[in-house]
């Protein structure tokens, strides 16, 4: 490929829902993703609850760039580029811990956990003191843009990035379902980290809107009685929604009010009370009046969520779990999956234990849903790397008629109270929306 005109054709095809198969394993497009997408968009790095105490830190990457996400000794959360100002050594080589200072292993330059340079060996003898190298004002490079939403921390490598809240847009409405179930918000554990030989976009698309795969890919989960929902009939009654920079899937709930429906998926009464206190009337209406419960979702470009409610051991009762996951690109055909377990911080201890076990059974490195997904994605990626994949346009037009009219009309504001566009049934609207944004970023040349 390479020629600009060829790429324009790729993006045109993507926008009409005919996906050139090679985009899932293409080195040139990956280089373009690095330059134009991941150097600009807001990407998730950590959740505040991973660094609860002053001095706590985790080290996270935005593709090739390492950042120390630290809560400094004054309690302020920062994202510091993990590179010593002197010779460029990676300053912090642990992935988590608690530290008041970071000292470079190469020549011993030391920094406070807020990034300020505080010491360098032989400052007077080697530099003539502050005359030669003034310590004050020297600090590790902060992330160009750094912001949070409900404790989710994001970095953008673009110093002129639009504010995070504007970037997320109306997807915030749906993010709250996963990340705000009490005033205290989430606590997360993990992540489990593992590498898969698959392109990062596949998982992002799958979580964004692929209700169609659930009954088939995950049939074994229903076969063994772990999950009562993903039968074909149940799944297609759900709605997909897309709003702002994200979208997701839902399940249709049986008749009832808000409390009954929250209880149906396994929330105990005390959690329902806390949830009611923090969700807006419109958010409660999506569940209580419209009868939809959030399931999987993706926030562009590579952050996904899942909320499911498998059965408890030896019982027909179900219990929800929440997982947050990052599809961290390694190359055009390899992704590091980072998968966190998340639970409301105010949830009862037994609920947290059961929810954690439910997560491990279903998602993550050992999760039984996840196993079958990844098998497919690896296979898809491998096949997309060949010459024939350049001749194949994958049909991603589900839900559209030949004249681009929808097969099923969008839900009205009265039948779906959330923002954005929502519709019932199998469709690939969200996958098209996600790849449409992808095409927008890749086509926009640098400022």
């Amino acid at each position, binding site marked *: 490929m390479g020629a600009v005109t060829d790429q324009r054709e790729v993006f045109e095809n993507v926008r009409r829902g005919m996906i050139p198969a090679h985009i899932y394993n293409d080195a040139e497009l990956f280089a373009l993703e690095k330059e134009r997408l991941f150097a600009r968009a807001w990407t998730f790095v950590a959740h505040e609850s991973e660094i609860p105490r002053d001095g706590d830190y985790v080290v996270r990457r935005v593709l090739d760039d390492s950042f120390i996400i630290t809560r400094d000794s004054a309690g302020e959360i920062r994202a510091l580029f993990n590179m010593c100002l002197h010779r460029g050594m990676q300053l912090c*080589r*642990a*992935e*988590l*811990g608690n*530290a008041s200072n970071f000292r470079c292993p190469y020549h011993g330059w030391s920094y406070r956990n807020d990034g300020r340079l505080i010491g360098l060996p032989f400052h007077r003898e080697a530099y003539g003191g502050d005359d030669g190298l003034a310590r004050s004002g020297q600090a590790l490079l902060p992330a160009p843009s750094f912001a949070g939403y409900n404790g989710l921390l994001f970095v953008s490598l673009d110093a002129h990035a639009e504010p995070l809240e504007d970037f997320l847009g109306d997807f915030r409405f749906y993010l709250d379902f996963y990340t705000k179930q009490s005033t205290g918000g989430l606590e997360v*554990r*993990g*992540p*489990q*980290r*593992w*590498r*898969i*030989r*698959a392109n990062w976009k596949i998982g992002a698309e799958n979580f964004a809107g692929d209700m169609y795969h659930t009954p*088939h*890919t*995950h*049939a*074994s*989960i229903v*076969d*063994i009685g*772990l999950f009562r929902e993903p039968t074909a009939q149940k799944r297609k009654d759900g709605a997909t929604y897309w709003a702002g920079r994200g979208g997701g899937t839902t399940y249709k709930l049986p008749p009832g009010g808000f409390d009954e429906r929250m209880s149906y998926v396994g929330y105990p009464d005390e959690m329902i009370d806390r949830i009611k206190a923090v969700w807006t009337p419109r958010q409660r209406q999506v569940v209580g009046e419209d009868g939809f419960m959030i399931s999987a979702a993706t926030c562009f470009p590579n952050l996904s969520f899942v909320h499911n409610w498998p059965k408890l*051991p*030896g019982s027909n009762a179900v219990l929800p779990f929440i997982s947050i996951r990052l599809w961290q690109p390694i190359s055009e055909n390899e992704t*590091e999956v980072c998968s966190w*377990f998340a639970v409301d911080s105010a949830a009862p201890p037994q609920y947290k234990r059961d929810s*954690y*076990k439910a997560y*491990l*059974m279903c998602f*993550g*490195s*050992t*999760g*039984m849903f*996840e*196993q*079958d997904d*990844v*098998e*497919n994605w*690896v296979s898809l990626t*491998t096949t997309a790397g060949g010459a024939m994949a350049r001749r194949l346009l994958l049909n991603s037009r589900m839900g559209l008629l030949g004249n681009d009219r929808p097969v099923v009309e969008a839900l009205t504001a009265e039948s779906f109270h959330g923002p954005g566009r929502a519709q019932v049934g199998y469709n690939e609207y969200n996958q098209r929306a996600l790849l449409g944004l992808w095409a927008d970023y890749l086509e926009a040349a640098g400022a």
Partner: protein
Amino acid sequence: MRKALPFNDARHLEAHQFLVDEAYLLDAQQYDAWLDTLTDDVRYVMPVRVTTARGAGFDTSPGMAHFDEDKYSLSQRVARFATEHAWTEDPPSRLRHFVTNVRTFAGDDPEDRAHLLVQSAELLFRSRGDVNESAQVSCGREDVLRWCDDRWKLARRSIIADESVLRMQNLAVFL
């Protein structure tokens, strides 16, 4: 430091044989037979390893594991393989569990002849299909074997992965 039983101690030989027999069952994916080698109260855990400073005092992710299993959850995982829809192992992986560095310790209580502590090192080699590279997991294991029903059974296993980021597409197989 605790002293391992001599290699010619009958208890060590029995523990070693248990692990080698088990490796065969796991290679052959004879999971029903494998479940039968576990006690009903088995605990099977594999913490997430993390990179921390030498003085940090911990090297696993607080509260997070890859496996945190009991007999019920392991049975569910095995039951899934018996369905026609467990795509990740259909076609099945070619597996080889290499077990070495086996050391056996008597329990703390010298009167307790019903428990053995066994350490081992394991390398799992896994190959799928004909295109993708094979994958490996290297780990240490700390097991508790219990004598019951006239044979040794696995009562507890802690799997200590040697990687913080696993280079295997999933852990649909056991270690």
